[in-house]
């Protein structure tokens, strides 16, 4: 599995791209900033008010002025409270809505990616980007963005007020700030490094746990427990060490910064006291100044605490953007399907002519492969000079040892992958010209791995054709011989399936997948080893259903079982990506070639 990038490649660029997402919620963004500024200014104001308030107590005891100042403070307090509330709320809402949009964009983008993308990236990786990285982003956007804004405004504003009050004291503050920032950098660097090591140890541990837990039964069967505990113990130690180190540096920031600001406090007190004694400052001024130092150091401390998570979130954001930058599945097909041709409810292909207008080619289901070459990667060719044809309604079977290329051939018919050389013709039209949506609407697949969705049995069958009526659903289920077991489920057709239909047996899931294909009423049917993991009784039910399903449709079937292949119009024997034998069952048995060999087991009976 690819090593996850833990450090953002280009933080500035990523940050800017993230900010561009705010354009969907501009009101919240600008509103938030506006109120942050107001709130911060008002907070600075309150601190500033301390000065005159305390001075009236020490100096001339002007009661009226005192009360006036207190009222002003109260008013400012109200402003601060409400402004901070509005700004916090706006920023938090902004974060949620931005993350919501990013999730939406990611999902709809994912739906359009080519199948090859999913082959190259592990599910774990993609899930992690969708969940962990998005979560980290959410947290960072909520906390860090407003924090950074508040800090910037507060620091700038407070600094200005301090300069106005006393340039000398401000100089002291500036020096201490420099020291503090240097410490942030020093500790921050080590903290970031160790944080990355911790993340790596965590990922390693999690990967190990996932693998071992999934195979825990194998562990028991092989008495591997002690060895598993050994390996785990080592990884556990590694994680403990990395985590301890990372946390030490990470948590250290707070007491470090906090106490440095106290040193600043101390210096201000001393210098300020001196200045008061020589009458350059009032006591009230000191009070304000001290509050200012707190105002400055508090946000700086908070931000320095969040640096690590912020960088990790940016690295995650980059992975998210990488997904969003992936190219869609290309189409480039200008031939579309028309449902009613010549007013007779028979579909046909609309093939655009060079001089305008369309040729209407009736949809029959004639597939031909001419000199087709294909490889998943450019280095390795998986299929070599494949030539075959299937007339409408015929059943073509593919056999061969595992890895010979049978599944690959069927992946090409529906353009999950594009061929390198040669051409595949559908009713005489190059399938590269046919719009993928329309192409696939004429086909149904029953795959080796059955995938069902969360929802009722009815909804899963209806997946094949969304506008099917309830009666049509039951009819399709009957055809697939699934109706019987469905009736025996707790709520028959309304029974809810858990994710991937895990509350049904393997056989039942396959029957459902057949019903789903049936309801789509396709012209072309692709069956990929549909019956191999089902017991023989159920297989018989499926076989019957399949026969009914296949009538009048062009079918491509891949199987290991003799019975499935026996009635095929033509059998293609694949070996190393080439068709080495072809013919019907009797022809091939007579040839005593590879086909004969593959059926050696059954032949010994007779």
């Amino acid at each position, binding site marked *: 599995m690819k090593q996850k990038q833990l450090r953002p490649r280009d933080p500035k660029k990523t940050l800017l791209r993230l900010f561009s997402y705010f354009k969907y919620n501009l009101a919240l963004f600008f509103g938030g900033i506006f109120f942050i500024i107001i709130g911060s200014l008002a907070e600075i104001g309150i601190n500033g008010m301390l000065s005159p308030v305390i001075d009236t107590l020490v100096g001339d005891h002007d009661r009226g002025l005192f009360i006036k100042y207190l009222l002003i403070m109260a008013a400012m307090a109200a402003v601060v409270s409400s402004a901070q509330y509005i700004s916090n709320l706006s920023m938090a809402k902004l974060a949620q809505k931005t993350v919501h949009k990013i999730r939406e964009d990611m999902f709809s983008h994912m739906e359009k990616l080519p199948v090859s993308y999913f082959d190259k990236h592990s599910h774990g990786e993609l899930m992690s980007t969708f969940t962990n990285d998005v979560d980290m982003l959410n947290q960072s956007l909520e906390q860090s963005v407003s924090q950074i804004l508040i800090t910037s405004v507060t620091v700038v504003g407070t600094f200005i007020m301090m300069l106005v009050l006393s340039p000398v004291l401000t100089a002291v503050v500036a020096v201490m700030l420099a020291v503090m920032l240097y410490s942030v950098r020093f500790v921050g660097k080590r903290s970031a490094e160790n944080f990355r090591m911790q993340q790596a140890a965590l990922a390693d541990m999690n990967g190990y746990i996932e693998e071992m837990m999934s195979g825990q039964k194998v562990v028991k069967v092989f008495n591997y427990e002690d060895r598993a505990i050994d390996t785990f113990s080592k990884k556990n130690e590694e994680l403990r060490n990395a985590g301890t180190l990372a946390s030490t540096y990470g948590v250290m920031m707070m007491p470090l910064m906090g106490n440095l600001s106290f040193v600043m406090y101390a210096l201000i007190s001393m210098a300020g006291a001196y200045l008061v004694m020589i009458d350059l400052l009032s006591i009230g001024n000191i009070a304000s100044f001290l509050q200012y130092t707190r105002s400055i150091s508090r946000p700086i401390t908070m931000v320095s605490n969040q640096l690590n998570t912020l960088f990790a979130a940016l690295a995650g954001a980059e992975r998210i953007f990488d997904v969003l930058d992936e190219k869609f599945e290309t189409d480039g097909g200008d031939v579309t399907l028309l449902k009613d041709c010549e007013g007779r409810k028979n579909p046909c292909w609309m093939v655009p002519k060079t001089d305008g207008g369309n040729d209407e080619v009736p949809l029959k289901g004639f597939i031909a492969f001419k000199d087709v070459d294909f490889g998943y990667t450019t280095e390795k060719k998986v299929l070599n000079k494949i030539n075959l044809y299937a007339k409408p309604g015929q059943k073509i079977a593919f056999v061969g040892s*595992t890895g010979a290329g049978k599944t690959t051939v069927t992946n090409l018919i529906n353009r999950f992958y594009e061929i390198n050389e040669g051409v595949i013709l559908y009713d005489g039209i190059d399938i590269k010209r046919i719009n993928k949506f329309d192409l696939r609407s004429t086909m149904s697949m029953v795959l080796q791995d059955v995938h069902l969705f969360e929802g009722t049995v009815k909804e899963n069958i209806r997946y094949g054709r969304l506008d099917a009526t309830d009666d049509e659903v039951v009819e399709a289920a009957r055809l697939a011989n699934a109706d019987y077991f469905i009736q025996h489920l707790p709520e028959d057709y309304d029974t809810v399936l858990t994710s991937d239909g895990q509350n049904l047996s393997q056989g039942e899931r396959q029957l459902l997948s057949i019903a789903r294909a049936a309801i789509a009423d396709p012209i072309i049917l692709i069956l990929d080893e549909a019956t191999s993991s089902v017991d023989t009784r159920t297989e018989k039910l499926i076989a019957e259903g399949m026969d009914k399903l296949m009538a009048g449709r062009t079918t491509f079937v891949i199987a290991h079982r003799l019975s499935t292949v026996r009635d095929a119009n033509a059998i293609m024997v694949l070996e190393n990506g080439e068709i080495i034998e072809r013919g019907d069952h009797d022809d091939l048995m007579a040839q005593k070639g590879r086909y004969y060999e593959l059926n050696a087991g059954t032949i010994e009976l007779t």
Partner: protein
Amino acid sequence: MKKLLPLMKKYMKYAVLCPILMVLEVAADIAIPYLMSRIVDVGIANQDIKYVIQIGLIMIIAAFLGMTFGVMSSHYGAKAGFGFASEVRMKAYKKIQGFSFANLDKFTVASLITRLTNDCNTLGQVTMMSLRMAVRAPFMMIFALLMAMNINASLASVFMVSIPVLVLAIIIILTKARPLFLKMQTRVDRVNAIIRENLTAIRVVKSFNRQSHEEKRFKERNDSLMDTALKAITLIIFLMPVLNIIIYSTIIAVLWFGGRQVVAGSMGSGELISFITYITQILMSFMMMSMFFMQLLRASASVTRIVEILDTESEIKEVENPVKELTDGSVSFKDVCFCYPGSTEKTLKNINFHINSGEVLGIIGSTGSSKSTLVQLIPRLYDTMEGSVVVGGRDVKDYDIKSLRDHVAFVLQNNTLFSGSIRENMKWGNENAEDEEIIKALKLAQAWEFVSAYKDGLDHRIEQGGDNFSGGQKQRLTIARALLKSPRIVILDDSTSAVDMATDAKIQRVFKNELSDVTTIIIAQRVSSIQHADRVLVMNEGEIESLGRHEDLLVSSPVYREIYESQQKGVRP
């Protein structure tokens, strides 16, 4: 939580030092505003610069002491937190290694993973936080309150109003927010579920052109997540203005009342200034404590889930003096009945049969897991309800479990290989196997022909889940792995379903001839996989329908005949 505390023992000294140092840090920090008030009220009032500098230096020393204590406290807190988490994780992992199949069924793989990862990590983080926050915040508050009261007890009475109000506000808001956060978690799970579904089933989605349908489904869940999240956030954020208002009102009240005292001369202005500093410290501590409580709530869920693991015991128990040697590979079932824990329906009923040592037995029958269940009783992966399973002349319960499982090789239906080299995977069968032994096993399993084709041979890597191998290749590798145990009994549970018939036949011949002294039990769907067995056991609905040789069964067993015929359709020339 009490159950987990003993695991802290190794790191106890850090767990104790951390808060102690934290308290010292807090003490140093609290002293500072007080010292400052001395500067103003004594130093400035008396124009005593020497005094000011003295106190100032004491302040700086206090700050550095605070820093040292604080940093050390962080370090110890981290050691304790991560140490504790690693002890808990190790204990839980060891417990899981002792789990029986029934235990593993109960928990599900996904939840075990979450418990070992997320829950343990949460525990570590919260421990670390508790040791610091749970100590810092209350101490900060108490010290600051004491200092404030020391400065001016009557003025400090203002806290008798502000503190309860704050606490009340916190309690109200948090109680309302908690159910919202739980709801949010469910919504998050639902969003993740649909993403996972689409990732694995992308081909189905594309071939049925259901992209926009799925996008709509997703939008529903995503929107609902955002709604709940917004509600929760709006509530929580409300705490901030509440806190602000309380803090500022308190400050203003103190300025008013304190101001009068300063004017009257009963309180120094320096004291007033430091009092105000303490106000913020006291009230902020409350906020920190409430945040901490929320974390504690989240952690309590994790604690429960981890304790669940620690409390689970395997039901497979060993006797006092277990036997380690297996005299022969014979297997008998005597009146065996079985049902899965938690189920009332009997999966197996009245199972009675005997296999001689070295025999090859095929098992075939209707769908459902009763065949797998039956053979899993032999190495005691599950225990029988009634009756007994006898291996090598002894009840399986009399054997040392590890020895029993060493002698009985089991190839499960879900054939799992692990990331690592082929050699490493094969060594699961025998840690000390030399390459020649490994190659021999691979040859027997008909896997050497493709393994030898790799340039790196035995060093060739198996990626997670074995995805870089085809189904048939994976099955043959798992058979080879099992053979490396040099077992007396081998059980193959549908282990050749993805293997083509010719290779299957070769494997069968190996078991019959080369491994003739190994008792072999083969569960299969295809008659062709078991027709050469010495005998075949035909199962139907959890009971034995017949037992006999292939030729005899064709005549005597209707079930067998039906299966055979449906598979033979069309072989007749």
